[in-house]
């Protein structure tokens, strides 16, 4: 006699799926953090009654001046690259300027200097930018809460 199989109620265990979903979310969050590593963490200036706004530019070059703890600069980072000296900084800026012009865009330079860095280390960067012919320079600063979600340019 043939054996009869009785239909059994099947339950899907959702726990591993939820675990996996959360792990994927965390993975992509971390991956995006690495993607943003171009902006090295520095303590940007904190102005009184800050006028700084969040802005987005289609073509930008971020120059980061990392503090060495004594008022000097540990390293100059131009975009994802490190500049050993001002000649190298100039050549990277010029190259980026040329590429932006070739694409018909205006290169926006963002200077992100630590608030404790002395002006003598920032001044040569500004001079180099002026000599290259870049007029549009943006200074990174902390935003007050009322300025959050401010204007967005160029997009």
């Amino acid at each position, binding site marked *: 006699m043939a054996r009869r199989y009785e239909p059994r109620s099947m339950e899907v265990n959702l726990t591993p799926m939820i675990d996996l979903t959360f792990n994927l979310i965390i993975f992509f969050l971390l991956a995006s953090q690495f993607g943003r590593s171009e902006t090295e963490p520095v303590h940007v200036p904190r*102005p009184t009654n800050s006028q700084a*706004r969040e802005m987005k530019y289609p073509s930008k070059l971020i120059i980061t001046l990392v503090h060495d703890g004594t008022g000097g600069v540990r390293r100059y980072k131009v975009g994802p690259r490190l500049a050993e000296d001002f000649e190298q900084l100039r050549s990277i800026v010029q190259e980026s300027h040329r590429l932006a012009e070739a694409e018909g865009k205006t290169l926006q330079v963002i200077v992100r200097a630590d608030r404790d860095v002395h002006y003598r280390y920032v001044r040569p960067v500004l001079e180099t930018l*002026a000599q290259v012919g870049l007029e549009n320079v943006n200074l990174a600063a902390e935003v007050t809460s009322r300025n959050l979600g401010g204007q967005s340019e160029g997009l």
Partner: protein
Amino acid sequence: MSDAPRQTTRPVSLEPGKDESTGSGRIRRLPKHISQPNMTPMIDIVFNLLIFFLCAGNFNQPEGLLPSRLPKQHGLATVGDEIPTTPIRITLQQYGPGENDYAIRIEQRAQNPSSFKELEDILRGLRESGPFDAQTQVIVVAGGNVRWDHLVNAFNASLAARFENITFGTQ
């Protein structure tokens, strides 16, 4: 005949293993399968949620930009340069290593601000009542040892006072 276990109505001691009804101290076996929720998936989810919110949370102060324009092809302005219009020159000096060891001076003004908020108020007053307008050039001049924070603060105060032509200079 039913296979269901027989139920007893005898009172059972709260102390495990003792049967109160007989008082004989005879060991009575507790049922082997005690129903309890499986905590492992819940702990998994809680930890995942914890990690998720730690990653998603941003502990840094949000950052914005102060747009400025540099003079074309000339580098930074210097105090000795001939400038056709009368600019407002703000001089910053650092006289000590401390964060607040700085002095602000507005050239040709007797009144010197003691804070950047005061600088903003003075500049606004100059623009609204004085001979200056929004297009008047403001030059922030600083020595090499002045903290970048102070320069940006002075720049920000000029912007807040609605001046549009602000640049940095060197001493």
